[in-house]
């Protein structure tokens, strides 16, 4: 029961100037990841692409040898997305939208949810990057914008942590972040690819592990063949420990007896949606839980088991 997403997943990266967005985007554009990623930026000027990688560049779209596309967002995001979805060489596997330091990523999130994109695009994650040092002394006039960036963020990346102090980072957390916020501290905008981009192959891997800067990034699987309570599952997912960054899978729910539902949780955002088509007999559910340094795998599994509907 592999999840087939016909929608193109989208990750939105916000953050002020100097927060490390560009470093991150440059790494993706120049990287060997085997994915055709379309990166939408405000201005080519900030992007630094090895000229030998550029296959073609016309108007506001640049095609790269690794299959990536980089384009600038003209004033109209809707039109630019339509262009990407109707490319003659086929849709991208993934879209990454950088919002400029002065724009409101909430607007982008809203636009992606307009009916016209509902069957075509799916918000995978909204990442807010912040410079640990800069953020502890934000000028008053950008505070509202900082709030807009944080309020829509699924995952908050505190960058340049090496240049800051633990005290300052704790201050940021206390003054700016939400009780359950998923925070990833890093330097040089080093973010695990699997955290940033939810590719489906990953959800098939059980017991996957990779080490990032001394932190163990891992996943585990939980399965049952009984239906789950929608209400309990929502509560359980929202109470997961904050080292869980992603959960995805397919579940049978008491509230939806005839169809499977997909679970897609990134950071603090949980979406549970009906999967089209009737489900075959049986009530199998399977979730992949992805995060860092799990010590409480058994506890999480136990909490999930509590969601099983007692018949």
């Amino acid at each position: 029961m592999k999840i087939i997403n016909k929608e193109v997943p989208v990750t939105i990266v916000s953050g002020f100037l100097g927060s490390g967005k560009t470093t991150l985007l440059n790494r993706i554009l120049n990287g060997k990841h085997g994915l055709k990623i379309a990166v939408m930026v405000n201005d080519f000027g900030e992007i630094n692409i090895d000229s030998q990688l550029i296959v073609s560049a016309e108007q506001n779209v640049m095609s790269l040898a690794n299959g990536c596309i980089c384009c600038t967002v003209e004033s109209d995001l809707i039109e630019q997305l339509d262009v990407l979805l109707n490319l003659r060489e086929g849709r991208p596997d993934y879209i990454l939208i950088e919002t400029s330091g002065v724009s409101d990523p909430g607007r982008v999130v809203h636009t992606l949810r307009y009916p016209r994109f509902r069957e075509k695009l799916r918000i995978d994650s909204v990442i807010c990057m912040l410079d640990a040092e800069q953020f502890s002394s934000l000028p008053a006039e950008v505070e509202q914008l900082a709030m807009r960036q944080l309020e829509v963020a699924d995952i908050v990346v505190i960058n340049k942590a090496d240049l800051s102090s633990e005290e300052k980072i704790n201050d940021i957390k206390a003054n700016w972040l939400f009780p359950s916020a998923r925070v990833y501290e890093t330097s040089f905008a080093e973010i695990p690819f699997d955290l940033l981009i939810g590719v489906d192959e990953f959800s098939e891997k059980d017991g996957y592990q990779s080490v990032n800067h001394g932190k163990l990034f891992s996943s585990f699987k939980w399965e049952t063949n009984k239906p789950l309570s929608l209400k309990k599952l929502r509560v359980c997912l929202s109470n997961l420990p904050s080292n869980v960054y992603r959960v995805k899978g397919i579940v049978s729910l008491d509230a939806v007896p005839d169809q499977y539902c997909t679970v897609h949780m990134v950071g603090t955002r949980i979406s549970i949606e009906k999967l089209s088509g009737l489900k075959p007999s049986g009530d199998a559910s399977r979730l992949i839980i992805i995060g860092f340094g799990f010590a409480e795998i058994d506890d999480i599994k136990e909490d999930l088991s509590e969601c099983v509907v007692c018949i």
Partner: protein
Amino acid sequence: MSNAENYRSSHTGKSAGKADLVFLNGKIYTVNNSQPWVEAVAIKDGSFIAVGDNSLVQGHIDDHTHVVDLDGSFTMPGIYDMHTHPDLALAPGYAGYLDVGLDSPTPEDIKKSILNYAELNPGDGWIYGQYFVHFEFKRAGVEAGREWLDSIISNRPVAILDRSWGSMMANSKALELSGITEQTPDPGNGYISRDSITGEPTGILVDGGYAMIHAAMPPTPMHALKRAYREGIQYQSGRGVVGTKYMHVCEHRLNALKAIDDVGEMSLRVEAAISWQDDIFPVKRRWELIAGERHFYRSARLNANAVKFHFDGTHETQSSYFATPYEGRSDWRGSLNLTPEHIADMVADLDRKGIRVVAHCTGDAASDIFLDAVAEARRRNGDQGIRHQCAHSSVLLDENLPRFKALNVTAEFSPVAWYPYPFSRARAQANGEERSQRLFNFKGVLDAGGVAVMGTDWPVSNINPWVGFEAMVTRQNPWQEDEGQFYGQPIALEQAIKVMTINGAWCMGIDHKAGSIEVGKSADLIVLDRNLFEIPAKGNIHSTQVDLTLIEGQFVWDRHGRFNDTELAATWREELPEFCDKM
């Protein structure tokens, strides 16, 4: 109203005696080619009866004539602002809606504020206002939406906008009154946030999604509309405006304007244009108004013989309809809000009814279609003398410049971006070099014999018409914030004065009886604190102060209170509302 009491029809004859009012010793610029400069005018029954030098006017003075010594002051006809919106700029702020009044209110602050408002405004009416901040809800671990609002108040509708105006939070009662259920389809330009499994609305409505709430709410209250228009009128009189057009009205707005007219406070001529679309506010009595109900509002100062359309959008959102693609785009050239067939039929139909069509056309292809539609109307109806109006005309095709004259269509320009500052620079860049060269082509229309006018389009730009007036002549920043020269050709001062006066009167269909200082015309004039011909335009015209405004022989503005406590006391005097941070 005053005119209804002592109106002089063609055979009533003049009132007894000589002139009611005489102005002497002025430097009066008449905007009449055969007699451009005079010293004096005599006025009787609201019209000029003599225009010339002091000695000519002396003969019109008797014991009952009020004589005003202009002492060399520069005087000219009153000016015309042919597109503005005091209601949209001011009325929401005067409506008495809920205002939490904090920069970043917490859910608890909002709750208190709602309960407090409910206590002060008892009953079952709407509690509508601003604002909440999603960030603060997340910080507090509270889910913003219907359930949270219901827990505060569930028996009357509540709707609160978020700080960025991107979404609205509504309670169950508000959703019910707006007919928003799990069955309601999302609008094209927004959505109703829903539970992903049940489809039930969560009470968060995004972008176009909250128009449904607005449509269900009572209209902007009459007291707010009246106050907004009254202050707008007062301000305009104080800046020397004697004729204006309020674009977008509905029956409520017309009622507010009539109430002001009825008490004699309509101190300038207003043409109000009924909205064709419901995109700003619903117009429930549109068809009745168009069919003839509009005549109920008619007076010497007020008419609603116009209909306002949005043919296309704006340059900023790339929704202006252009003849060629946007810069850097291979195929996108914007879109029309209405089909060309719809446009052609309705222009012809309204033309036949004697109603002026005012068409918002920021793109050169939108105005092209408008001119085609007027040509078709002329073909079907013949020239009925209705001067239709192309609003904004931000970019025009060169081929269309002569058509304004040929079809008797006014080209109206709004000064939001015809001088250099960051907004206009960004807009020009987005337009590309070729199109930018054609931005705000006053000169092109005038050189081809057409009529160009200005509309301030407040609150899109400054309501003070003198700012755009100066930039028309300089295409430079009036405040020296940007030393460059903006795209497009400046026009000469004499031409600009015509644009601001007689052309406005033409655009209102009253140029035969107003718009210049000539015998037989309405006695409208303004006395300024400076002579426009004796100062450098740059940095000076925009800060012009109007000392006196006279319309139909009546003082409506008196800056220094010169005629206080006399028979000539002005409608408005000494103080103006402060709307603009820059002068």
